[in-house]
C-alpha cells in the first residue's frame, strides 16, 4: 500500500504501522518502504513517517540517511513552522554521522528570525549533546547566545538545555539573571519549573543567607542584645529580592509543579519571616490528585521539621480520611506529628484516637508510633499518652497490642521508676501476646527494671524457661538477658532457673543464641577460672541505658533540594545537582549589571534623588527587623540600578555607635594628645546606644561618659586649630567592630582606618586593629587565616601576636587592597584555640587618600571630569553644620580627603585619589543662603563617585 499513488492508501498503511509501534510490536522490516515516503506531500502521511523515522532511525542508520536531504530542504523553508518541524525531526534522529549537520542546523536556527524556530533549536541542543558530548563547547556557545534571547518562548527551553549541557557554567546566567526573573511570569509553565529550579541554585551561590542572623541567634541563645545590635545587619541583595518578588505570584499557578518549585525556592532562599506564604499554596495542592498529594506531603513533612510554625494554622487540613490511600495516611500522620506542640497536642491526640480504630492495620501501627513520638517530644502529655497506650494493651487486635508494647517500652525507658505498675501489667500480657517483637520488648523491660518488680520478675522467667524452646530467636535472646540480669540482682531465687535457661540455650539451633549463652555463662557464673570481667558483670548488664530518641524519618532530608526526585527517595538520583551552601560573602553583584555605561549615571542620579536621604532614614527606622524591607519595596523601577545597592549596603554596615578613639597621633597641629569624637552616622539610635551601654560594664560606661564630656570640651576648644588642617590623615577616626567580646569569647577586636600610608605596599589601605583580651585567660598566637577575597583584592596580614595576656590590649596594622570597591575582605581570625569568621568592609571614604592641589589645579582637573563623571546634588545643611569649619570637619570625617585652599568662603573644596587606581576624587560643597548647599563630586570612577556623594550627603545633613 505504501507504494501506492493514492494518499489515502498510504495513510491507511502508515496508520497501521504506527499502531504497531504503539503496541510495542516490531515494524523495523518496513523501514525502506516507509522512508521513501518522507517527501510525501500529504501532511498527515508525512507526520506519521516522521514518527516512524524517529523510532527506528538508530537501528537502521544507513537507510535513515536517505531522509536527511528532505529535512535540510525543510530547514530553508520560508514557513517558520516547517523550519521548526524539520529541525525537530532532524535532531531527533539518533544517527551519529549527522552530528555535523545537526550542529550546523542548530547554529543557524539559533539566529533564526522566528522565536519558535529558536525555541526548537534550544530543544535540539540536549539531543545533540546526548548524541555527541564532544560538541559541548560549541553547544555552550549556542546556549549563551540563546540565553540572551528576550522572548518568553525561548527562555524555558534554553534554560532546560543549559541544565542538561552545562549546569556548572553559572557564569552564563549572570547577565541574564534579571531578564529571566522579569520574564518568568510569562514563560510557559514547564519552562517556569526549570527556570525556578535553576535560579534556586544560582541564588544559593550568589547571595548571602538571609537568615544568617537568626541562625546565629539560635546557636547562642544567651547572646546579649548588644551582640545582636552590633552585628552587621544583613541587607538583602536587590536581585535576591527581585527573584523572590517575581516568583511569588506563581504560587497561584494551576500547575502543581510550578507551585512546588516556587515553594522550594522560598524554602531555600527566603528570609524566615517570608517563607510562610508558601504554606497556603501547598495546602491547596493537597486537594489535587493523590499522586500530587503524595509528593507534596513528603515535602511538607520535611518543611515541618524545620519551620513548624508555618503549617500550624493548617493543622486540620492534614486530618486523615478513611478513604485516603495508606501511603497518604502515613505521610499525613508524619506531618501531624511534626506539628504537635504543647498547645495543639490535645486536639491531635483526640484525632489520633479515632485513627487507632481504623481498619487499616498498617496505619494503626503508624499511629501508635506517632503517639509515641508526640509523647517523647512533649513532656506534658507523656503520662496521658502512656495511659492511652496501656489501654490499647487490652485491644483485641494483636498487632495493635504488639506495636503499643514496643512504643511503651521506649517511653518507659525515660522514667522507669514511676511506672512499675505498667511494667507489672505488661508482665501479665506475656501469657497472651504472641508477636515476638512485643514479647521480646516486655522481657527486656522486666529484665531492665527487675528491681522495680522484684516479685514478678522471677515468675516471668520461670514461665519463659518453660516455653523457651518454642520461642522465636529474638525472644530467646531476651530470655537469656532476663535470666542474666535476674541472676545478678536476685541470684537466690533465680540461680537454678538461669542455669536451666542457659543449658537450654547451649543446645539451641541458632548459633547466636548458643554464643550468647556461652558468653553470659562465663561472665556471670563465678568459677575458679573466671576472668577479671565477671567482677564487672553487674556494671555491664545493669548500666543505665540512654532512652531511645524517636525521630522523624524526614529529619535531615532537607539537604536535598526540596521537590526533587532525590529528596523524595532520600537518595541521590543520577544527575542531581547539589544545592550549594550559602557563600560566606556575596560575590560581586555587579556581574549581573547589563546597563550600558551611560545609563548608569542617569539612573544613578535619579535613584539618588528619590531614594536618598529620606530612604536612609527609613532604613534606620526599620533596623529592628532583620532587613530593611521597606527600602526595597519602594525601590520601584530603580531596582536594576547597581548604584542603588552600594549606599544601602555601606550605610547599614556602619555600626550605630558613638565611638571615641583616643590616639596619640601628631596630627592636630597642637602636638598634644588629640581626641576626636566621630559623628554618628546612623542617627536616631539613641535607644540603641543606651542598650549598648547598658550591656557594657557599669564602670566603663561612666568612664566613657565622662570622657565623652571632656572630649567634647576639648574639641570645642580646639576648633580653630582643626579648621586649618588641610592635608592630613585627618581628624576623626571611626572605630568599627570586628569581633565582639561575647562572640569572641572574651577577645574583642575593633578596627579603624588609620589613614596612614601603609608602608609595605602603597596600594593598600592601612587597617589598624585594636585587640582587647577581656577573658580571664591569655590568648596566644593571634593570626589571620583563610583569607577570602574578590578577585584582585589583596591582603597583607599583620605579624602574629604571640601572646595577649588577660585584660591587656594591643594593636596591629594590616593592609588591604580593596581594589577601589567596597567589597568586604573576609578572613578567619585565629587564636590558639578558636577561629572566628570576620570581615572588614570599608566605607567608600576610606578608599582614597588625600592629595594636595591648589585651587587652579583643582579647577583644571575638575573641568576634565565633567559630564558623566560629575554628580551633583542639592542639599540642606544640618543646623549644626552651617559654618565652614563644621563642613570641613564632617567631610573629612566621612572621607579621607584633604581640603583645597580657596579664596571664597562660600565654597569648600576637597581632593583625594583612590588608593588602588589613583583616580582623582574631587568634592565641592558650595553653600548658599539658609543652609542650602550644593555638593558636587567629580570622579572618574562613577561608582565611587555615587557612593561618595551619598556618604557625604549623609554626613552633611545629619
Amino acid at each position, binding site marked *: 500500500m505504501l507504494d501506492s499513488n493514492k494518499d489515502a492508501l498510504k495513510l491507511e498503511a502508515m496508520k497501521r504501522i504506527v499502531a504497531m509501534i504503539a503496541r510495542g510490536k516490531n515494524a523495523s522490516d518496513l523501514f525502506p518502504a516507509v522512508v521513501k515516503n518522507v517527501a510525501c506531500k500529504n501532511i498527515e502521511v508525512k507526520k506519521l513517517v516522521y514518527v516512524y523515522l524517529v523510532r527506528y532511525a538508530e537501528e537502521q542508520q544507513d537507510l535513515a540517511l536517505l531522509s*536527511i536531504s528532505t529535512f535540510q530542504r525543510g530547514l530553508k523553508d520560508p514557513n517558520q513552522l516547517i523550519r521548526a518541524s524539520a529541525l525537530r525531526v532532524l535532531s531527533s534522529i539518533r544517527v551519529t554521522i549527522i552530528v555535523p549537520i545537526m550542529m550546523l542546523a542548530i547554529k543557524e536556527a539559533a539566529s533564526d528570525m522566528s522565536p519558535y524556530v529558536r525555541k526548537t533549536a534550544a530543544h535540539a541542543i540536549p539531543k545533540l549533546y*546526548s548524541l555527541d558530548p564532544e560538541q559541548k563547547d560549541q553547544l555552550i556557545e549556542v546556549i549563551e547566545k540563546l540565553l540572551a534571547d528576550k522572548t518568553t518562548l525561548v527562555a524555558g527551553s534554553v534554560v532546560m538545555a543549559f541544565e*542538561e549541557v552545562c549546569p556548572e557554567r553559572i557564569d552564563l546566567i549572570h547577565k541574564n539573571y534579571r531578564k529571566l526573573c522579569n520574564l518568568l511570569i510569562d514563560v510557559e509553565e514547564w519552562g517556569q519549573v526549570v527556570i525556578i529550579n535553576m535560579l534556586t541554585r544560582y541564588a544559593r551561590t550568589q547571595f548571602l543567607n538571609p537568615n544568617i542572623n537568626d541562625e546565629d541567634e539560635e546557636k547562642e541563645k544567651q547572646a546579649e542584645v548588644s551582640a545582636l545590635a552590633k552585628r552587621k545587619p544583613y541587607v538583602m541583595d536587590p536581585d535576591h529580592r527581585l527573584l523572590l518578588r517575581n516568583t511569588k505570584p506563581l504560587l497561584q499557578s494551576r500547575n502543581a*509543579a510550578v507551585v512546588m518549585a516556587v515553594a522550594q525556592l522560598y524554602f531555600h532562599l527566603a528570609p524566615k519571616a517570608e517563607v510562610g506564604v508558601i504554606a497556603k499554596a501547598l495546602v491547596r495542592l493537597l486537594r489535587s490528585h493523590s499522586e*500530587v498529594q503524595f509528593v507534596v506531603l513528603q515535602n511538607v513533612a520535611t518543611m515541618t521539621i524545620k519551620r513548624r510554625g508555618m503549617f500550624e494554622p493548617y493543622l486540620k487540613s492534614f*486530618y486523615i480520611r478513611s*478513604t485516603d490511600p495508606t501511603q497518604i495516611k502515613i505521610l499525613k500522620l508524619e506531618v501531624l506529628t511534626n506539628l504537635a506542640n504543647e498547645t495543639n497536642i490535645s486536639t491531635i491526640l483526640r484525632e489520633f484516637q479515632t485513627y487507632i480504630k481504623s481498619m487499616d492495620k498498617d496505619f494503626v501501627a503508624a499511629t501508635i508510633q506517632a503517639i509515641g513520638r508526640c509523647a517523647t517530644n512533649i513532656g506534658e502529655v507523656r503520662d496521658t499518652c502512656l495511659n492511652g497506650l496501656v489501654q490499647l494493651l487490652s485491644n483485641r487486635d494483636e498487632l495493635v497490642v504488639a506495636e503499643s508494647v514496643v512504643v511503651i517500652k521506649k517511653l518507659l525507658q525515660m522514667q522507669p521508676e514511676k511506672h512499675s505498675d505498667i511494667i507489672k501489667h505488661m508482665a501479665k500480657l506475656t501469657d497472651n501476646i504472641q508477636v515476638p517483637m512485643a514479647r521480646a520488648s516486655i522481657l527486656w523491660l522486666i529484665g531492665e527494671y527487675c528491681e522495680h518488680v522484684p516479685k514478678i520478675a522471677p515468675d516471668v522467667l520461670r514461665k519463659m524457661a518453660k516455653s523457651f524452646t518454642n520461642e522465636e530467636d529474638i525472644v530467646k535472646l531476651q530470655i537469656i538477658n532476663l535470666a542474666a540480669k535476674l541472676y545478678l540482682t536476685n541470684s537466690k531465687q533465680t540461680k537454678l532457673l538461669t542455669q536451666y535457661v542457659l543449658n537450654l540455650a547451649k543446645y539451641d539451633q541458632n548459633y547466636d543464641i548458643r554464643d550468647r549463652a556461652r558468653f553470659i555463662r562465663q561472665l556471670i557464673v563465678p568459677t575458679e577460672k573466671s576472668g577479671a570481667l565477671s567482677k564487672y558483670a553487674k556494671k555491664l548488664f545493669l548500666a543505665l541505658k540512654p532512652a531511645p530518641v524517636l525521630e522523624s524519618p524526614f529529619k535531615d532530608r532537607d539537604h536535598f533540594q526540596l521537590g526533587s*526526585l532525590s529528596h523524595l527517595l532520600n537518595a541521590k538520583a543520577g544527575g542531581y545537582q547539589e544545592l550549594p551552601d550559602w557563600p560566606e560573602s556575596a560575590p560581586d553583584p555587579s556581574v549581573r549589571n547589563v546597563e550600558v555605561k551611560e545609563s548608569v549615571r542617569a539612573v544613578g542620579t535619579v535613584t539618588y534623588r528619590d531614594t536618598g536621604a529620606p530612604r536612609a532614614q527609613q532604613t534606620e527606622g526599620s533596623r529592628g527587623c532583620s532587613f530593611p524591607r521597606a527600602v526595597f519595596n519602594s525601590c520601584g523601577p530603580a531596582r536594576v540600578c547597581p548604584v542603588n545597592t552600594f549606599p544601602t549596603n555601606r550605610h547599614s554596615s556602619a555600626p550605630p555607635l558613638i565611638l571615641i578613639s583616643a590616639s596619640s597621633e601628631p596630627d592636630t597641629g597642637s602636638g598634644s594628645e588629640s581626641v576626636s569624637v566621630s559623628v554618628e552616622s546612623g542617627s536616631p539610635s539613641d535607644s540603641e546606644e543606651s542598650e549598648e551601654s547598658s550591656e557594657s560594664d557599669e564602670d566603663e560606661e561612666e568612664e566613657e561618659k565622662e570622657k565623652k564630656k571632656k572630649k567634647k570640651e576639648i574639641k570645642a576648644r580646639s576648633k580653630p586649630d582643626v579648621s586649618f588642617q588641610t592635608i592630613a590623615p585627618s581628624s576623626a577616626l571611626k572605630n568599627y567592630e570586628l569581633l565582639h567580646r561575647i562572640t569572641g569569647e572574651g577577645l574583642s577586636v575593633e578596627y579603624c582606618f588609620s589613614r596612614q600610608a601603609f608602608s609595605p605596599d602603597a596600594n593598600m589601605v592601612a587597617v589598624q586593629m585594636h585587640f582587647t583580651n577581656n577573658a580571664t585567660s591569655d590568648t596566644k598566637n593571634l593570626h589571620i587565616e583563610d583569607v577570602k577575597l574578590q578577585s584582585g583584592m589583596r591582603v597583607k596580614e599583620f605579624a602574629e601576636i604571640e601572646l595577649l595576656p588577660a585584660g591587656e590590649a594591643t594593636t596591629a596594622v594590616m593592609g588591604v587592597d580593596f581594589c577601589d570597591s567596597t567589597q568586604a575582605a573576609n578572613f578567619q581570625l585565629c587564636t590558639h584555640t578558636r577561629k572566628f569568621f570576620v570581615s572588614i568592609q570599608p566605607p567608600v571614604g576610606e578608599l582614597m587618600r588625600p592629595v594636595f592641589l591648589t585651587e587652579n589645579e583643582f579647577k583644571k582637573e575638575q573641568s576634565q571630569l565633567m559630564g558623566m563623571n560629575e554628580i551633583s546634588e542639592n542639599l540642606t545643611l544640618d543646623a549644626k553644620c552651617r559654618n565652614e569649619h563644621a563642613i570641613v570637619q564632617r567631610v573629612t570625617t566621612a572621607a579621607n580627603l584633604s581640603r583645597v585652599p580657596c579664596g571664597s568662603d562660600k565654597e569648600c573644596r576637597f581632593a583625594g585619589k583612590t588608593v588602588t587606581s589613583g583616580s582623582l576624587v574631587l568634592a565641592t560643597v558650595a553653600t548658599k543662603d539658609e543652609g542650602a548647599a550644593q555638593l558636587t563630586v567629580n570622579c572618574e570612577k562613577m561608582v565611587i563617585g555615587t557612593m561618595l556623594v551619598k556618604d557625604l550627603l549623609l554626613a552633611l545633613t545629619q
Partner: protein
Amino acid sequence: MLYIKTVGAIFFRFTYGLTLYDGIYFCLRVHRSAGGSSVALLPFWRQCWQSAAEMIHSLFLINPTGDVFLEKHWKSVISRSVCDYFFEAREKAVTPENVAPVLQTPHHYLISIYRGKLFFLSVVQTEVSPLFVIEFLHRVADTFQDYFGECSETIINDNMVVVYELLEEMLDNGFPLATESSVLKELIKPPNILRSVVNTLTGGSNVGSSLPTSHLSTIPWRRNGVKYTHNEAYFDVIEEIDAIVDKSGMTVFAEIQGVVEACVRLSGMPDLTLSFVNPRLLDDVSFHPCVRFKRWESERVLSFIPPDGNFTLMTYHVSSQNLVSIPVYVKQNISFFDSGSSGRMDITVGPKQTMGKTVEGLSVTIHMPKSVLTVDLTATQGNYTYDLTAKVLVWDIGKLNPQKLPTLQGSLSIQAGVPKPVENPSLNIDLKIEQLAISGIKVSRLDLFGEKYKTFKGVKYVTKAGNFQVRT
C-alpha cells in the same frame, strides 16, 4: 578509549526509487576508533546517552489486568520489561491507589499515576522534579479526556494513531512542548463522527492542514480567527464541601473548595473582566494562566483573554476560618453484637443548612469491614446495593424530602468465628444543591472589551459534597 578523528568529507550522491535527489551533497564526518574498527561506535554513543540528563524517557499505558497496551519512547527504546518492577509493587499493594507513585529500580525511576482505571507509567533516568512528571501525566490524561470524552482503554485503542500523534506533539525529547489544548487541537483535530465519515469519503485527514498560529502568538491558549454566529460565555461556579463530621455530629473540619468552570464561545480576541460581589471571601486562589494576576492583586477582579471553549478559569478555597454551613445531618447507629455474628444498622439523613434549596442526588457510601458478609436492610426512600467483593454499601437516596426523612435500617451478618470489627465504618456522603454556592460567593458582572457584539452570558451555581465524611 576511543580516538576519534575527522577523516574527511565524503561527497556522494544517491538515488532512491523514483525520486532523484539531484545535486544534493552530504558532508559527513566519519568517526573511527583507534583500532580502525567502526563496530565500537554504537555502544559508544549509547553510553553517552545514558549519562546525559533528561526528562521523561518513555511512557507505558497499563490496563487493569496488568498489560501494557501502549508504549511511546521519546528517546532510545527502553524495553517494557522495566514495568515488571511496577507490577511487583502493584501486586503488593492492596488497591491500585496504594501503589507508590515513585518507584526506584536499578537503572530507572518509575513515576506513575492512576487515572480512570489505567496506569500511566513514565520512565525517567535521572533527577527530575517528580511533580513535574506527575503533573504532565495528568495533563496527558486530561487531553485524552478532552479529545475523546473519556480516558479508557477501549477509547485509546480505537484512537491509537491520534493518541500517538498527540504524545508526539506534547513532548519533545522528553520535555513538554505543546500542552495547551488550543494548540493541540490546531495540530491534530479531535475526531468526531461527521469528520470521520467525510474523511473516508474524501480521503481527508484529521491532521490540521494549516499549521497552528497560537503557537506563535503571545497568548498560546487562544488561536486567531475564532468565529461564532452566537457569541456566548457561560460560567459555572461549583463548590465542593470537604468536611469531617464526628460521631456526635460535631464538625471536626470543614472547608469549601470552589472552581469556576467556563465555557466561552466568543469570536475574535475578547478581553473579559469578571467581578465578584464579595471577593474577600476567597481565601486562596489559583488561576488559569490567562488570568492577569496583577489585576487580581490590586482590584480583585478576574481579567483575561479566554481560551476558546471549555476551561477551568480559577479554583479557590474558603477556609475553615469562616463557618462553613453543612447542608445535611446524619443520624446513624451501627453496632456489631458480640454474640450471634450479626450487627444492626440504622441511618437517617436530614436537612441542616440548605438555604431553602432542595438537596438532590443524595447518596451514602459505606466501606464495610471485611468481615461483613451480607446486609439485609430496608430503605424508606431510594434503594441500596451491596458489593460483596469490595464490601461497599451504596445507598442511593435521590432528592431529600424534609417532611419525610429517608432512613435505612436492618441487620448485617458477619462472618462466623471472626472477632467483631473494632471500628465502625465511616459514611461518605454525596449530594448536590443546584442554584446555590454554599460559601455565598456571587458573580456581580462580566464585561467584554476589545470586541463589539452582543454576548449571551450566564452564571450557574452548584454545590456538591467533596470529601464529606461522617465518622461513626
